[in-house]
Each structure stands twice: as structure tokens, then as C-alpha cells.
């Protein structure tokens, strides 16, 4: 949802985990005005989790088992409804990945800004986590890439820059990351030493075969160009 777009909440479903009282009624009325469809559940009960786009929860009444996901990794934006504004409840809510707060008594004012804030924060956090996971993977794969470069330098008699360029161009051609290509290349190199089992695993895709062929061909090309240069 784009907070700048018109009708950003129309047809979205909000789950409210709150006992029926004046605050809950005020929240339901305001969410309906904003075009949301509202589902309500008891904050302490164990119930089937419905398909919703956003969740409001009573921070004083919810417990660790309330959310059906790993702590701190919410699948939908969470808005904590704060009764007792104590450091412990704030910290508890934050530890569960809350992306906005709504302070009691609930009035018509405040709900809209909490919705926009939570959706924006949730989207940012999700994008940030995805980027972080990708970077972590790439950091882990650095060692593999280093090994692949080394193999390519030795097998094809290339400098480190030439080997890197070879790997980069090939990854672009095959439309895979350099890390992924390095893994494939290493598997095939390994397979040539260690027999048929790894060979089959390594050449199970067309992409892997192309890598091997190209690496061999380019090795020849590089040798020739080196000779010409010398």
C-alpha cells in the first residue's frame, strides 16, 4: 500500500485483537470510515489466524503465543494499542515487530496516522531485511568466489583481473550471480577430480554445461591472446 495513493485502505482487512469495549468500538468505527474490513478476536484466546492485511493488538492483553510467526518477524504490519504506557509493554511490543502505536483512549484522530506509519515502516523493514539477507548470502559466498577465481587463474593461465572479468562476463551471459556461477564452476571442477556422482550433480542443468564449455573455450582464447601479446 502506498501512503500517498488515494483509497489506500479501501478493501483491506484489519484484525483487531481487543476485548469489546468503548476503545474497540471507536477503532472499528474509524477503520470502517477508512474503508477497511474489520475482523475481531479476543486478545488472549488461541484461534485460527485469519488472512488479514494489518493487525491491531491490545498490548496489555496479548501474550507471546498470540502471533503465529517467529517472534519479531511479523507477516503483517502490527499496531500496538497502548493502555499502560509502561517501558516493559513498549519493549514487548517492539520486540514483536510492532511498527506503530495507538494510545488509549482511542479517538477518531490518530488511527489514520498509525495506519500509514505502520504500513510504511513494515514495508521498509521488510525491504531492509530482504536486502540484509541477500548481502549475508553474498558475504558467505565470497570464499567460494575466491576459490573459483583461483581455479580459473590456474587452469586457464589468467591473471586475477582476467579471471574476474571472465567470471563477470559469464555470469551476465548466463544471468546468474557471480557467486552462483562460482559454485557451479567449482562443482564441475571438483567433479572432474572426484568421478561421476558429483559430475552428474554438477551437470544436471544446461546452464552448468555451458559454463564448463565456455570456461574451456575461453581458456584457449586467453592463451592465444596472451601469445599474440607476447
Amino acid at each position, binding site marked *: 500500500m502506498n501512503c500517498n495513493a*488515494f483509497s489506500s485502505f479501501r478493501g483491506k482487512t484489519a484484525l483487531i485483537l481487543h476485548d469489546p469495549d468503548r476503545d474497540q468500538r471507536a477503532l472499528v468505527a474509524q477503520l470502517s470510515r477508512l*474503508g477497511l474490513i474489520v475482523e475481531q478476536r479476543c486478545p488472549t484466546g488461541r484461534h485460527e489466524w485469519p488472512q488479514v492485511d494489518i493487525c491491531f493488538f491490545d498490548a496489555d492483553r496479548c501474550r507471546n503465543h498470540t502471533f503465529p510467526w517467529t517472534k519479531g518477524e511479523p507477516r503483517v504490519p502490527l499496531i500496538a494499542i497502548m493502555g499502560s504506557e509502561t517501558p516493559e509493554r513498549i519493549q514487548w511490543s517492539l520486540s514483536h515487530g510492532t511498527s506503530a502505536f495507538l494510545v488509549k483512549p482511542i479517538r477518531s484522530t490518530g488511527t489514520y496516522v498509525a495506519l500509514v506509519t505502520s504500513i510504511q515502516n513494515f514495508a521498509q523493514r521488510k525491504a531492509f531485511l530482504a536486502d540484509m539477507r541477500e548481502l549475508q548470502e553474498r558475504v558467505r559466498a565470497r570464499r567460494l568466489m575466491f576459490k573459483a577465481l583461483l581455479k580459473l587463474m590456474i587452469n586457464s593461465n589468467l591473471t586475477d583481473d582476467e579471471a574476474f572479468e571472465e567470471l563477470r562476463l559469464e555470469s551476465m551471459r548466463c544471468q546468474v550471480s557471480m557467486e552462483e556461477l562460482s559454485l557451479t564452476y567449482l562443482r564441475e571442477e571438483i567433479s572432474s577430480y572426484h568421478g561421476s556422482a558429483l559430475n552428474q550433480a554438477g551437470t544436471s542443468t544446461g546452464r552448468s554445461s555451458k559454463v564448463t564449455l565456455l570456461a574451456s573455450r575461453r581458456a584457449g582464447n586467453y592463451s592465444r591472446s596472451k601469445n599474440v601479446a607476447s
Partner: protein
Amino acid sequence: MLSGALLAIEEISADASFDFKLTPVIENPGGSVPCYYACCETLLRKRGVSHVVGCYTSSSRKEVIPFFERCDALLWYPSHYEGFECSDNVIYVGASPNQHIVPLAGYLMSAFGRRGYCVGSNYIWPWESTRIMRQILEANGGTVVAERYLPLGVKDVKHIIDEIGDLEPDFIYNSLIGESCYAFIEAYSAASARRGVSGLPLPIIASCTLSEPELLALRPEARGGHISSSVYFQTIDSAENHRFIHRYRKRFGSSAVASADAEASYVAVLLLAHAIRRARSTEIEAVRRATHEFTLEAPQGAVHVDSENNHCHLTPRLGRSTKNGDFEILYTADGPLRPDPYLVWFDPIRDTRNWSSIGQDQSYCQWIETQEMHR
């Protein structure tokens, strides 16, 4: 606003069908935002008032709403506004954005083009109404070529007019208020007339705020040809409006000029009185509930308070100002439109292309000719 409210109070008090009289208690904050809070404190805490008709600017309304919510009193807000608000302690009698900004944007795009220049005073209403205008234009492939804000009361507008001349937009969306608005329109009209001798005049000015008393504050040569979007114009041709204008002039003088704000204040008091009579109480919750239960035949037409959001169902209209300080009505919606303060049900493409029965392919001139023929 005060005149409209006083007229309604006097009418209710003189009407035998009401078994109570209304007594006006007047406080004047003088347009100073911090004074609104003090005035409301006096009214609600010291003078025992529980229903207040008032506030014009959004800044003043937002200043007092928390106090009304704390005291559980009801503010009857008689001005059009930018939406994105819905307090249970306010009855919004003026137009919501879907009732005035949206029709204006649809009309401007179909009649003049999709390149708008926005100029306004530096506060909530211009910021938010311009945002809505910008998003409608952009959703329809148009653009805001520039967005400029002037401090309240500033009259130096030469740089704005120079920039408009350079950028050549299709229309001007004007959300300036008060003295800045008058200074801008007068300087703009003069500049446009000068250009008209050697080239094309400057583009048309459109707004949701320009009203009849403001036109009269302008020099006659600057009054004509501006577009205004409003649910009320003094020139509405209906028996109810003729009666209203007659009573208004009888009470405030033959030269008295009514406006959307005067009419909305008048309507606000009538709604309050009818709700009190229906609820048999002045208690807030009872009055609020009763407000949703009837439709009032107002000078502008049927008015009804929506039970979901406490805003009024009103009839959108577009007018073009004339040199004698009135508005020639160009467009009237088929009937009252449900208020949509958060623009939840609004589609910026669908609802601005088919905003009226007038086909989008008809040029402005053809359309005006059609209007002339029908008159």
C-alpha cells in the same frame, strides 16, 4: 458566518413549531488561532454552552477539537474543508473534498488541460487541497508545473504572476485566502489584460474558496471570469433559496451578500434546532444521533448528515464569477453527494473523467454555448 447563524437562531426562536428558543452567545477570536482555544474555554466551561457553530480555517478547527472532545461538546463546523478528519465531536456542515475539489479538478482537466499551477496561503487547507489536486492531475497524466505558498496576509504577488507567465500552465488552482487572494486576483487580472493586447491572456483562475462577498472586495474589472467550486451560490434558482435571500436582506440590509459560509452557518443552526427537537434534549449523544435521522430542505437543496462520518450530503456546483459580483452557475450535480472525507471510495481517473453529464470530448466553448442555449 455570524449573519447566517443569527438569522437561523432568530427564525427558530420565532417559529411556534419549536417549543424552545435559541439564545446566541457570541465570542470573537478575531481570526487569531490561539484565541480560538480561549474563546471555546469561555463558552464551554464558563458560559455553559454545549453546541458551538464556528471556526473557518482548518487551523482554528484543529486547535479546538481536542478541547471539544475533552468536554464532550459538539462543534458545528460550517466551512468547506480538505477532509481527512472525522471527529465524533464535530458535525461537518461544509463541503468535503469529493464534493468540491474533485468536481473542480475534473472540470478543469476536461475544459482547459492537465497542466496546473497551484498557489495558496501557507497553512493546512492549501497544502492538503493542493495535494489532492496534484494527485488527481498526476493520476490522469497531468502535472502541477509549480506549487507556491505565501504567508497569510502577504500581498506581494508579482513573482507569482511572472512565473505563471513564463510557465504557461493550462489553469491556476488558487487556494490563497483573504487579503493575499484579493491582491493576487487584482494583480493577475491587470497583468492578463495587459497581455491580452499583444498576446493570449493569462490562464483561468479556479478555486474552492472564492465567494460573493470576496468578489465585491475586488475592483469590478477583476471580478469576472473566475471559476469557483461550491455547494452554494447566491444565484441558485430555487424557491427555498429565494426565501433565504429575501430574509437575509430583510435582516441585514438590501445590499447584504450571502455566501456558502453564510448559508452553511444558517444550515448548521437549523440542523441543530431540528435535532434538539427530535431528540427532546440538548445532550450531545442524543442530538448527534437525531442529526442522522432527517433531511433538511436548505437553500442549497436537500442536506442530510451521514451517520457514518458526521459529514453532510451536499450538492456540488461550479460557478463562474461575473462582473457584478455574483456567480453564473455552470454545473449542478444531479443531487446530494455522499461525503467521502478520506476519499476512500474515490477513483482519481474514473471520478474525474465522468464528473458530470457533460461529455469530456466537448470543448469548453462548445459546452458554454450549450449552456447558453439551455438558458
